[in-house]
């Protein structure tokens, strides 16, 4: 058990180094959400004046949670791609042939994804600070949001990892990239649910990412956050369970079939 924790840490460190040494993995996690944030806050700030828009200090303050959500989803996808690349080049065989828990291998990758999620979260808090959209609930609020962001990146990484383990092909995991955007735009990450039209509104109401986005957003924009944070944690837990079940099944399938 103790060695498994050492292995998780070592594989997490490798995962982070791998991302920083391969800029094409890092770019989507930070660059895309930053560009989208710039475009949306520059072009759609008038949405603030729509009746029913939540009370916020600025459109940027509202959008920060969406940008973070996008970053962690892409981090999860990148983590899945990196794991699939490991499978393709046989690196996972090195890990599977070692006397460690197979879950430690997946957890190591998720630790790396969590660090990247934290980096992305801090980056967007910094952007908010620089461009006049600080966290309304101060440092405790920022830490709470960051905590949710890190947990989300781990469970989304778990989904990416399970697909990588099941398919063993980086191209397939990479092919999920557009779905990340579809799922995200069908949530309240970038726009208030109340102002959406059907059927997007109904989908957003049941989309777990909406619950997480609201949980991340609440401490940033201020107001009573306990309910939103609890709902976010429940959604993260649900996705986490699905990710765990998919990963376990994929690991067993890999051992049984050899590929």
């Amino acid at each position, binding site marked *: 058990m103790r060695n498994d924790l050492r292995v998780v840490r070592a594989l997490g460190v490798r995962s982070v180094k791998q991302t920083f040494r391969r800029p094409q993995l890092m770019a989507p996690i930070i660059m895309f959400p930053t560009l989208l944030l710039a475009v949306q806050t520059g072009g759609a700030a008038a949405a603030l004046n729509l009746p029913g828009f939540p009370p916020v200090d600025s459109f940027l303050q509202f959008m920060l949670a969406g940008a973070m959500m996008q970053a962690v989803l892409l981090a999860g996808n990148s983590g899945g791609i990196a794991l699939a690349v490991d499978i393709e080049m046989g690196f996972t*065989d*090195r*890990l599977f042939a070692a006397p460690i828990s197979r879950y430690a291998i997946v957890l190591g990758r998720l630790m790396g994804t969590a660090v990247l999620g934290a980096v992305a979260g801090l980056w967007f808090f910094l952007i908010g600070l620089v461009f006049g959209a600080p966290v309304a609930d101060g440092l405790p609020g920022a830490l709470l949001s960051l905590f949710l962001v890190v947990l989300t990146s781990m469970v989304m990484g778990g989904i990416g990892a399970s697909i990588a383990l099941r398919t063993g092909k980086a191209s397939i995991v990479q092919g999920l990239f557009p779905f990340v955007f579809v799922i995200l735009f069908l949530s309240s990450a970038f726009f208030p649910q109340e102002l959406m039209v059907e059927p997007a509104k109904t989908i957003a109401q049941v989309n777990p990412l909406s619950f997480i986005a609201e949980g991340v957003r609440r401490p940033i924009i201020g107001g009573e956050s306990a309910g939103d944070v609890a709902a976010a944690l429940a959604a993260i837990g649900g996705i986490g369970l699905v990710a765990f079940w998919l990963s376990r099944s994929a690991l067993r399938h890999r051992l049984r079939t050899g590929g």
Partner: protein
Amino acid sequence: MPAIVVEGLERSFGDLWAVQGVDLEVSESEIYGFLGPNGAGKTTMVRMLTTLLLPTAGRASVAGHDIVTEASAVRRSIGVALQEAALDPLMTGRELIRLQATLHGIPRRDGERRADALLERVDLADAADRRVGTYSGGMQRRLDLAAALVHEPTVLFLDEPTTGLDPVSRKTIWEEVEKLNREGTTVFLTTQYLEEADQLANRVGIIDSGRLVAEDTPGALKAQVGNPHLELVLAEGSDDAAGIICEKFGKPLPAKDGKVLVELERGAADVARVVLALDEGGITVESLELVEPTLDDVFVAKTGYHLEIEEDEPEPSEAGQ
């Protein structure tokens, strides 16, 4: 106690049988060469013995542990260098060996010390802090071998360790394998190179279409297929007369490339007598060569075809079906 015991081991992928009813035993401190062409089942066998793949039927134990029910104990006892050097091109050589040490539960300081020693041993100390992606094929294989040794395994599995390497790199790997074996490590080596099996292995198992078709020491296997033969290049026009003389010493073989061939019943002991008899018959011998049977002859005798080397044709897996 044998280092590896395999009884009726089988593995199928759908309708395709990659390994069929293989039985074998490898003694401690032995180098066992598993010889066969691509797609014969060598890699599938190694993947089962290293716990990376479950068998369909049969059983096997490695270092005294069952590969299915005691997989973790097997993994603690073995070192593995698979067919494609499974290296992360973005890591440095030193990082990889240290990670491997962590995977095997070696304390950090010990791991660092062993990594330094192993990098020195495989002559990669100067390149230790370079990314693996910048290494040559031979350097990558040596690094892979070093990584497999970090926990001092009792049984080492090498899956085609020299495929695609230049002769110098190949020789370096051979020397290292022989050295490891002298130090007491049991080596299970798959190869498609006849020369490699002949040079390194104490015993050779020949696998074809998933079945073990022959198994013995290289010398005994070669002895099974016949005696050495003499290849003679003679002065023009004397082949028929020479054939009649040579018949007295052994079975004539079909001529090849203008050479007269005769299998010698007494091997090298007959060479001088053949030359003398030809000389007495007025036949000038321009050159001669005594050719021992090779493992290729054994392979042909057992399978009906020559072992031709093809690079990197993958063995089946269910995912690839």
